[in-house]
């Protein structure tokens, strides 16, 4: 890539909950924004442009909320940009914000994403108010069944992912679900939602927001010199494929494979399983973890479930996945993708707190949307040339 280096120097998120009745939309996003600005030791005056991402406006009933949020986000007199790429939107928001800096147009850009699910009914909105919505769980269940059939994975794999992510969430002060007594037995005993996905293998509905400050090489170097390590953006990509046609494989989507290839090629990653220290993958239903491990080249085809089974993806394993607790523990939909990107950045900054992966130098953040069609990924590193 011929583009100038850019980096994350500030990360912030809200405490995610079922209902954040204590804050307005504006209050919710500001909570994340000010944490990110504090983290970057900046104020709103240092921000040149704002990029806002969220999932469908029908979720809350506010059309183009970036208009109303211009004031709360300190965007008056600045560019205010709005992205919407289905579930991947949080990730794409970070990528578009980075693009503002890479293009040389702005020095420091704020990426913000939010969802306040309690204000509306996401399942109703998914059906566009016309009823007959399968819900996301219903839409993904056939893909999960196909994965199980192809790989021959045993049924406890999904339960293990659900337990792992909820245990990780106990170490994340911002996580929504805190299930202290989570166990395989408890997951197994929870109600069947969409065969084979059980209640405790599903993501919650959350109110929450995330914000990330992205700046240029000089800004990142200044932060580093001040003892605040930046997360250098090594590469990023967004890829999409059409909804449905014979030959499309939603279990191993071509857009996911291409998105991974774009990022790995540009970042110089030739052996993702060994070169990537930790991954934040968008896993709203437990079985998506092995599916994405395979699509993103972190496991061979048909082998992703084995990394779950042998503990490789646990916090103490050699490739921790969703150390933050992931989407299974907090799901403010539009922000869920940005949270993946932000958590990956925090890992390589050594700023992940109790869920820090020891010695993480390279991490990926990934988000997907629609029926496994929209993919966004970035690779971040503790240095610009982590592989020498």
């Amino acid at each position, binding site marked *: 890539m011929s583009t100038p280096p850019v980096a994350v120097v500030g990360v912030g998120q809200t405490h995610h909950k079922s209902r954040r009745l204590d804050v307005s939309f504006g209050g919710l996003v500001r909570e994340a924004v000010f944490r990110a600005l504090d983290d970057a030791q900046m104020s709103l005056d240092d921000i040149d442009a704002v990029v806002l991402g969220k999932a469908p406006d029908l979720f809350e009933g506010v*059309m*183009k909320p970036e208009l109303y949020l211009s004031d709360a986000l300190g965007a*008056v007199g600045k560019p205010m940009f709005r992205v919407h790429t289905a579930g991947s939107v949080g990730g794409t928001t970070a990528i578009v914000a980075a693009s503002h800096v890479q293009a*040389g147009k702005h020095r420091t850009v704020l990426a913000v994403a939010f969802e306040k699910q309690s204000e509306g009914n996401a399942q109703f909105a998914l059906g566009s108010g016309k009823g007959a919505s399968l819900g996301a769980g219903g839409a993904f269940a056939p893909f999960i069944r196909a994965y199980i059939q192809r790989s021959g994975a045993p049924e406890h794999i999904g339960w293990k992912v659900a337990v792992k992510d909820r245990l990780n969430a106990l170490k994340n002060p911002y996580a929504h679900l805190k299930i202290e007594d989570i166990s395989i037995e408890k997951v197994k005993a929870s109600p069947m939602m969409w065969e084979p996905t059980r209640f405790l293998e599903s993501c919650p509905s959350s109110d929450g927001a995330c914000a990330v400050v992205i700046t240029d090489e000089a800004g990142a170097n200044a932060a580093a010199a001040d003892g605040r390590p930046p997360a250098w953006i090594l590469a990023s990509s967004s890829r999409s494929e059409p909804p449905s046609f014979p030959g499309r494989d939603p279990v191993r989507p071509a857009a996911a494979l291409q998105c991974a290839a774009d990022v790995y090629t540009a970042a110089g990653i030739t052996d993702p399983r060994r070169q990537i220290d930790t991954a934040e993958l968008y896993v709203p239903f437990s079985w998506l973890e092995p599916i994405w491990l395979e699509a993103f080249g972190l496991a061979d085809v048909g082998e992703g479930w084995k990394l779950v089974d042998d503990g490789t993806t646990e916090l103490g394993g050699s490739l921790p996945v969703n150390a933050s607790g992931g989407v299974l523990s907090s799901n403010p939909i539009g922000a869920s993708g940005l949270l993946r990107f932000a958590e990956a950045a925090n890992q390589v900054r050594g700023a992940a707190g109790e869920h820090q992966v020891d010695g993480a130098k390279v991490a990926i953040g990934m988000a997907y949307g*629609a029926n496994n069609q929209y993919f966004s990924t970035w690779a971040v590193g503790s240095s610009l040339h982590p592989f020498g």
Partner: protein
Amino acid sequence: MGAPSTDIAVIGWAQTPMVRHTDKSETQLLMEAITDAIVPLGISRADIDFTCLGSCDYITGQAFSFVSNLDAIGAWPPKRDSHVEMDGAWALYEAWLRLQEGDIEIAVVTGSGRSSTGDPALIYPMEMDPYFLAPLGADPLTFAALQARAVIAAGIADERSMAEVAVRARGGDVESLLAEEYLRQPLRRHDVPPITDGAAAMVLATGDRARQLVERPAYITGFDHRTECHNPSFRALDDSPSTRIAAEAAGLRDAPVEVAELQVAFTHEELLLRQVLGLGDDVVVNRSGGALRENPIMATGLCRVGHAADHIFGGGGRALAHATSGPCLQQNLVCILEGRS
């Protein structure tokens, strides 16, 4: 920082017929617009490196409405792609940024909307502050009328000059227009836009590729957009500071423009923006008829850039395109296009 380091140019664009209502889906409209934009250039969908679509779920009346539009792009093999819940002019902005990263050469951006399927008076209150403004249920006409009154009070417009704008956009004679009843004082029917279904697609290319594909690319030499305070009652409605900042950042003052395409859905907005942008009588404004003639919301702004590009394609030197979003011109975008001999 208005000028990019890499040459990026508009090399073609197309729009569907602009109609009061079509039964075609947005995907079908985009299929036609994209094909019509790329075929004259001798390229196919396979040559497109990046796509960015602009549309709005609330206009379409469906969550995730843009997802099916991937069929119109022909995103197979999968494309580098994005979508903005904004007018296609902002999709153009994202593509312009993306192309400057230098690893790709051709982008297609679109704007699409079928306003005929909804009632603006019901939909638009939902883009207002949900706590203090949306509950008022004020429709776009109400907010536009408030701004028109401010613009008239400031001496920038009067009902006659507004009617003259309407006549230039879509014909008629001033006296008979002024004899009509008010729709929302001081606005009459001729002061407000039609409801239009339609889509537009635009092709961008980087320097050498642009010059290979067309004789006279319309180079984007300045591009900026800005937002303002949301609540119209906290703004000076007889001004448009965000337009002024965007125009300065885009380098409008560096050289004169011959034409300007302004996204003005209401007649008084043209008079206000002419003043804010400092456009003299020698600048041809909205030769296309603008949004007062055809207003395919979510594509209207992109069409302004398209008409400005047509001026360059036809041998013109420098053109301005403007797009807007939000109540009373809350958010404004300025794009400067230039030809080179």
